[in-house]
């Protein structure tokens, strides 16, 4: 049977929207959070990501991994959201401390504090370094996959990773008041 002569058809093994959701919903939620979206807004932004996924699924050609493709969508939406959130925050500054306080479980304050430090350390990174750090150190992606996701050469990704690690380490050392092993 002749194959339809069109490039618009998805590849034969293209994932369905539902497969993408089941396999990668947690990934999207994590990425959204770690790229700098406030916990309060993570699910809203993740929802936006999946709305776009649904709309753009036909453009996924299988040339990259699904996670790489999702990261591209998520990072753009997060970037837009952060710009909007920055504007909103100027009007809502009195709301933020209460929300932040309630995120800390007293019984687990130590771990929560560590998490808060990690968030603060990530916030000191520029977007490019932050993405590499998050994808490699937190998502355990291989560096070639990281490079593909952020759209840079592998060596550049390594360079960003090195700098990001140094900054994160320095942040935690300042918080601890001593050099860390």
């Amino acid at each position, binding site marked *: 049977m002749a194959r339809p002569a069109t490039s618009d058809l998805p590849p034969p093994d293209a994932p369905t929207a539902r497969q993408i*959701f089941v396999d990668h919903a947690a990934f999207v939620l994590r990425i959204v959070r770690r790229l700098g979206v406030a*916990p309060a807004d993570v699910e809203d932004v993740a929802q936006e990501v999946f709305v776009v996924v649904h709309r753009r699924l036909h453009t996924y050609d299988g040339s990259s991994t699904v996670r790489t493709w999702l990261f591209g969508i998520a990072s753009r939406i997060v970037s837009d959201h952060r710009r909007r959130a920055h504007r909103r925050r100027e009007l809502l500054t009195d709301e933020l401390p209460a929300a932040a306080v309630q995120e800390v479980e007293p019984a687990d304050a130590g771990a929560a504090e560590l998490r808060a430090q990690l968030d603060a350390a990530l916030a000191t990174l520029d977007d490019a370094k932050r993405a590499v750090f998050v994808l490699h150190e937190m998502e355990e992606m291989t560096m070639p996959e990281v490079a593909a996701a952020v759209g840079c050469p592998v060596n550049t990704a390594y360079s960003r990773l090195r700098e990001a690690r140094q900054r994160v380490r320095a942040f935690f050392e300042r918080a601890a008041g001593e050099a860390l092993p």
Partner: protein
Amino acid sequence: MSDEHPIDAEGLPPVVRRAIARANTEDGSDAQVARLAARVGPVFGLPDPSSLVPSGSAPAAGAKAGLLGGKLALVKAAFAGSIVAGAVAGSAVLGTAEEDAPPPAANDPAMVVVTSTARGDPEPPPTEPPSPPFAETASAAELPRDRRAAAAPAPSAAALSEEARLLKRAGSSIGADPGAALAAIAEHQRRFPSGALTHEREVLAIRALLALGKRGEAEKRLARFARAFPSSPHVARFEEALRGR
């Protein structure tokens, strides 16, 4: 991965690794996935939860491997909740606009597709009586504040399923019998004061109050809702609906 390049010898301090481990237990939790599933489920054509079979591809490497089984159970429960989402969304998802529903924001793709915005894992409630009258709880008690999802324990699939069942009952009766809807909502509030579907419950409650013509109570409930879920798209829509009356 970590042993592929000399840079990895530099590593990260153990304290940073612990922080990352903590983050891995919080972000993308089963409860978050379930709530997200409730929101996007109708769009993704998932009316039958049993159709949610994981594909052959591996889930995200490392951090969340091994959680898929539990996650699927919650996703299934959440898709029961997606019926609630449809009820809440009214015209946006199911094409059954009800007269008391605020108008959907048609030019916002996220709003068009899904308007059920489960979120939360809110705080335990303040000291409320165990079974207060609905109107009292609507005006007196502060809603558990939104989003603590990162630190919240995941609800069991059974609990989430029961929450969804109650709210489905409320959603399905809101048009014909908003009083019955309020009863189901009150039952949800009593049994799940900090439930995963608190956001949905409040949306339904405000709609039911509007349907009953209880504008004052609806305004109070909306004020409380807006404090707990300040970024909910429903806030502006309800405000607009109330202004228009």
